[in-house]
């Protein structure tokens, strides 16, 4: 579920950080820039892994900061398609089951990828797997928020959310735009709430 991404950047170190070792200052700036951010077509950045090379630093006219070209590797959350992950149910809605990993929330299991047959219970606001016990009876298995769930990653979507215009404008437009989201499925034996398969 985690990968290493190789990246390059020209990092600006402002003069007030000149007391630090160059490596530490750059690591700090890179983490400030990337940690907990989504990079398009790369994934959710977690933390700096290592710096692989540093080139000479330059000072440009009119700016007291130093600029260093740096190559580094970053830990990125990006599960591969078909990977089996375990998360917690955040909520259920008509669109499906929303799953969270704690550090990543944009995972949706659509109704078509739930165990068959499943229905949405409006009063409980939960999806229910109407498990057929084989003797004509049905056993309702509720998918309540907070339960641990095992699912398969079936698709990933990246959305470009460029900052446009003023801060307010961006707020209005980007509100519903999720930069990186995953689609999951649980319509196979063994997938779904862990407690379903415990025995």
């Amino acid at each position, binding site marked *: 579920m985690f990968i290493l*991404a190789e990246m390059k950047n020209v990092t600006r170190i402002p003069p007030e950080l000149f007391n630090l070792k160059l490596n530490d200052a750059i690591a700090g700036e890179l983490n400030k820039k990337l940690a907990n951010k989504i990079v398009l077509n790369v994934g959710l950045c977690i933390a700096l892994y290592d710096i692989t090379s540093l080139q000479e630093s330059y000072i440009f006219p009119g700016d007291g900061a130093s600029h260093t070209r740096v190559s580094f590797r970053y830990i990125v959350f990006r599960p591969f398609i078909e990977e*089996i992950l375990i998360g917690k149910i955040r909520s259920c809605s008509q669109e499906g089951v929303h799953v969270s990993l704690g*550090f990543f929330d944009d995972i949706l299991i659509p109704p078509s990828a739930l165990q068959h047959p499943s229905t949405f219970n409006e009063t409980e606001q939960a999806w229910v797997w109407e498990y057929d016990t084989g003797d004509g009876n049905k056993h309702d298995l509720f998918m309540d928020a907070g339960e641990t769930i095992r699912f398969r990653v079936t698709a990933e979507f990246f959305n470009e959310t460029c900052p446009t215009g003023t801060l307010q404008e961006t707020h209005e437009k980007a509100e519903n735009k999720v930069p990186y989201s995953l689609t999951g499925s649980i319509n196979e034996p063994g997938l779904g709430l862990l407690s379903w398969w415990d025995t």
Partner: protein
Amino acid sequence: MEIVNANSATLSNFEVMKHLQKVKDSRKKHKGQLATITYETLRYLENTPCAQHSPEAMTQCLRELDGFNLNKNEKLMLINSPPTTALEIQLMIEESEERLSEEQVQKILTIMIQYFPHIQKPQEAEPQEQD
């Protein structure tokens, strides 16, 4: 910023956990986004079986898994969340019915328990209630 290689290597959950613990414990006080994501990711990882893995067991285990003709991602999944049932193996390994015989599946389960003995416990200690 320039992306040289968006996926130069895969990391196991254990490696990420160890790295983040180092980040968290470093003498420098972290703040802002790095602190948030490190905390949240660690909280997730420390609740997975890999919190009790040891590097030696993982290397040994991978060596033992060599004979089963599994690909890298499959082995990674086995290490990240060691299966305790044949059903879980079936999920993680594509077309496992054709690629693995029943004895081989049992063998994998034995290897898992041998190297990661801690995965057995939660099964019994967690009687889940259904309502």
